[in-house]
């Protein structure tokens, strides 16, 4: 198996982008990634793009109409689609192109231009009465709260933490300078028990990475983020007795990931994590759901400040999905921000000395999971 590393990262500013086209959006991120890697379009062997349902923009199979913008004419280009987890699935797909030894340098892009359409409409299958993603997850969050005994302020704390972190990230969509717990508590209750300010925004944006093998790393100017392990797991959306709070697929995915990486104590051995938290309570839920902390303890980690940038297990230093959510890109942004951390390129939200970082995404009815571990060390031992 060939080794794979992230050698270039590019992002757009996440916000409603009215001044450019979708072509412009993806090119911007792709160009930034190429510049970071000090490569040109011609150096790319293959392109992998990922995005959420086409109905979000009304462009079907966009690899066909975006290939020109991404310099992919005459090259292999394909498009991954695994619902909300797509950004991470796409990063993983791109990594396998390198790890297989079949391609040397790959460009991967995740994007969404939600302002062209309407996310709530699309997520509801284009019907009236769409409950949106929040409406689907709120009942399960209620179940988590009932089962874990968590106090209501847990979700609010996450909402504030991630938005304060976002103030350090110039690319983040939401820069809520005056965010406080009170403001979150007073914001409208969209899907009880989720307040409006506990929910992610609807963003436009593109995120890109250039991946290469050992030879490519040797030629690249900046510190690489080595891909140490990746894993994906899927289960049915619905079946008798399905645990929607701690899905088995999420547990299995984490176990497979840690095993591949040689990680035996994720809380201690992973320095920081970018976890897909579109609704505040998913932070404690995934801390438990991915075996970072025992069941019913996730909310304690949050409450005691362990997941703050100053804590022992920082989560979503970039502001996370709660601060920027171009759905097709969000999973890739998690993977890319994990890479930023171990490359030392996370600017104001850098965790000092971060050596091993987790990038994570989930999607669908919390039945799709995709995760990766990156490190500044090609062969980290634990």
């Amino acid at each position, binding site marked *: 198996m060939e080794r794979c590393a992230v050698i270039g990262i590019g992002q757009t500013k996440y916000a409603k982008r009215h001044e450019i086209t979708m072509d412009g959006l993806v090119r911007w991120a792709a160009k930034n990634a190429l510049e970071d890697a000090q490569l040109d379009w011609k150096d790319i*062997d293959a392109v992998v793009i990922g995005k959420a349902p086409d109905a979000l923009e*009304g462009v079907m199979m966009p690899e066909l109409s975006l*290939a020109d913008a991404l310099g992919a004419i005459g090259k292999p280009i*394909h498009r991954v689609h695994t619902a909300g987890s797509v950004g991470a699935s796409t990063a993983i797909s791109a990594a*396998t192109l390198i790890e297989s030894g079949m391609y040397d340098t790959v460009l991967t892009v995740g994007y969404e231009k939600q302002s062209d359409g309407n996310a709530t409409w699309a997520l509801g*299958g284009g019907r009236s009465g769409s409950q949106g993603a929040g409406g689907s997850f709120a009942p399960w969050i209620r179940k988590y709260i009932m089962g874990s005994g968590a106090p209501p302020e847990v979700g609010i704390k996450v909402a504030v933490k991630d938005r304060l972190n976002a103030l350090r990230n110039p690319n983040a969509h939401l820069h809520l300078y005056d965010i406080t717990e009170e403001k979150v508590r007073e914001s409208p209750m969209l899907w009880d028990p989720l307040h409006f300010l506990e929910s992610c925004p609807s963003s436009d944006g593109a995120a890109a990475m250039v991946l290469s093998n050992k030879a490519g790393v040797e030629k690249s100017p900046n510190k690489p983020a080595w891909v140490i392990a990746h894993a*994906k797991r*899927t*289960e049915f959306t619905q079946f008798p007795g399905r645990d929607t709070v701690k899905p*088995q697929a999420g547990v299995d995915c984490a176990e497979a990931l840690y095993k591949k990486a040689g990680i035996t104590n994720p809380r201690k051995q992973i320095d920081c994590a970018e976890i897909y938290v579109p609704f505040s309570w998913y932070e404690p839920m995934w801390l438990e759901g991915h075996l970072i902390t025992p069941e019913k303890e996730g909310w304690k980690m949050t409450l005691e400040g362990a997941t703050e940038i100053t804590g022992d297990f920082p989560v979503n230093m970039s502001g996370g999905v709660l601060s920027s959510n171009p759905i097709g890109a969000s999973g890739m942004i998690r993977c890319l921000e994990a890479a930023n951390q171990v490359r030392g390129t996370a600017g104001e939200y850098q965790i000092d000395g971060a050596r091993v970082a987790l990038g994570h995404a989930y999607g669908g009815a919390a039945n799709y999971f995709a995760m990766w571990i990156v490190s500044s060390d090609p062969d980290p031992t634990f």
Partner: protein
Amino acid sequence: MANRQGTEDIAIVAVAQTPSYRAYQETEPLLLMSLTNEILTETGLERNDIDFTIAGSCDYLSGLPFAFVSNVDGFGAWPPVYESHLEMDGAWALFEAIVRLQMGDIDTALVAGSGKSSPGRPREIFALQTNPYYHAPIGLDPISMAGLQANAMLDAGKATEADFAEVVSRSRRDGLKNPFAQVAKDVSVDDLLAEPYHTQPLRKHDLPPISDGASMLLLARGDRARELTDKPVWITGIDHRMESSHPGLRDLTVSASTKIAADNLGIDGGAFDVAELCVRYSPEELLLKEALALTDSVRINPSGGPLCGHPVMATGLTRVCEAARLIRKGEAGTALAHAASGAALQQNLICTMKGDA
């Protein structure tokens, strides 16, 4: 530019497909479930013996964002499985599966393609694949693009309408022998040419039918392949390439991306017994034959090809299945399968394979 083929030996060890239906009365997951069960029964495997599963399908065909999520019901995902999905023809899922197996750490991959074109109006839907500013709003559809491509070939003297009719006549006659075919008949070139134009210079019979259907295959690596079948079909190469989405920048009288893929694989167009090509519109056969430099000794589309059944998102993978099936039956030793996406052969994939000597 690196596009190597990898060092692992990977083989198709089982194939399954549904017939092409004008309108399948049940749901897509059931289409897939029948194939999953067929492959598991044939190989004697349990569901969790399969290391990786990947499918191709397209939500827009059924008009429902996230339609692909229900398809997971068809493959089985309990206990949880390692799987992925592309919003593309299953042939590209095959590509990802081959890439994944080339990593050398897992042994088996289940690959599927499926789609029901019957609920919607494909000619309206597929216009949405084009440039969203310049072409989608005027409903520029694949049939019209195929008409432009056909006319370009006639104008350039590269084909005649009789050549198109020959492809249709031969394909639909061959379809009579294919139990999965939807449209098959014995009709002469003269009778075809007597039909009125539909999208001139194409006639209705130059177009594919509207179909529902699915296909699936199981890949295995090295020794595992030999454990699972005594008739492995070894993948000797896979490559895919894209052309511009601006048709004005393309020469529609050649299939440039197919040629790039063929050149990268270093294939010899005379070296195949069989070529299963994604010929949705009859002129495409001539373009592809030229781009692949197929000699007259190569049997093209013995299955009848997509002109006999076009379950969009499975059609390309079905070409691989048909070619592999012939090799497993001992009726061919080497084969090339081709898949296409986008209007007028904008994107093309080639997969070459051979049986044991």
